[in-house]
């Protein structure tokens, strides 16, 4: 077998295959600069909630829509929506900052 054929089959072909897989799996350059710890966070606050169907509630079925929840507004509007969705607890109807019993949790800094 000619030398060039040997090289082509046993070197170039596997190399091309490996490079092809590398191009698929290695992360490409990220769009824009990555945020590093210590830098200020430049974005507006965002709040994510789980899909309403995750809790077996009859949510709106919005799909890709984003619901706006203004944090500056009184909580009464949100809590009304909450109690009308079927989750009725007597403490929810009052706009108190702590209405869900003793709150637990944790705090961390870095």
């Amino acid at each position, binding site marked *: 077998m000619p030398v060039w054929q040997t090289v082509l089959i046993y070197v170039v072909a596997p190399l091309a295959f490996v490079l092809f897989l590398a191009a698929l799996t290695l992360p490409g350059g990220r769009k824009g600069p990555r945020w590093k710890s210590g830098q200020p966070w430049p974005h*507006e606050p*965002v709040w994510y909630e789980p*899909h309403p169907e995750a809790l077996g509630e009859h949510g709106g079925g919005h799909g890709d829509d984003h619901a706006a929840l203004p944090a500056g507004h009184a909580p009464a509007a949100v809590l009304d929506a909450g109690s009308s969705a079927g989750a009725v*607890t007597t403490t929810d109807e009052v706009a108190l900052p702590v209405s869900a019993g003793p*709150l637990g*949790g944790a705090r961390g800094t870095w």
Partner: protein
Amino acid sequence: MTHALETQSHHTATEVTAPTRTEEEERHDRIFSWRELARLDEALTMSSRETGLRFTLYIGELGKRTRIRAEELFAQSGHDLADSVLLAVSPGQRVVELVTGSTAARRIPDRACALAVLSMTNSFAAGDVVGGIVNGLRQLSDQAGHPPGLRPR
């Protein structure tokens, strides 16, 4: 898809006109890539579905008194607060606050919360916000277990 709740509303729509959502759409795209958004969506929804608790995620400023602000946000997160968990991350201030309602706190004791927060802060210190959140949510939902009616026999 996850509902992203804006903390500042831009409602200029009426019943007759179309909703003005274009500004919010590109904003979500700029903070995280779509792939990262999908990971967050999946983590939040799966955690909520598996545990029966309501996990919400807030990423943004928490002001000077971070714990007070986190508890205020928790109170606004709607629905059944006793079963809710709020994960509030402020990358600019380098603080993460975890708030659990009374029922949720019984299933996820504060010690488990502290462990989850510790692993999250390690990820955040390395600059990985989304990965830290996803792993933290998984730890919390593993700790909470399944709701009583759905536990495997």
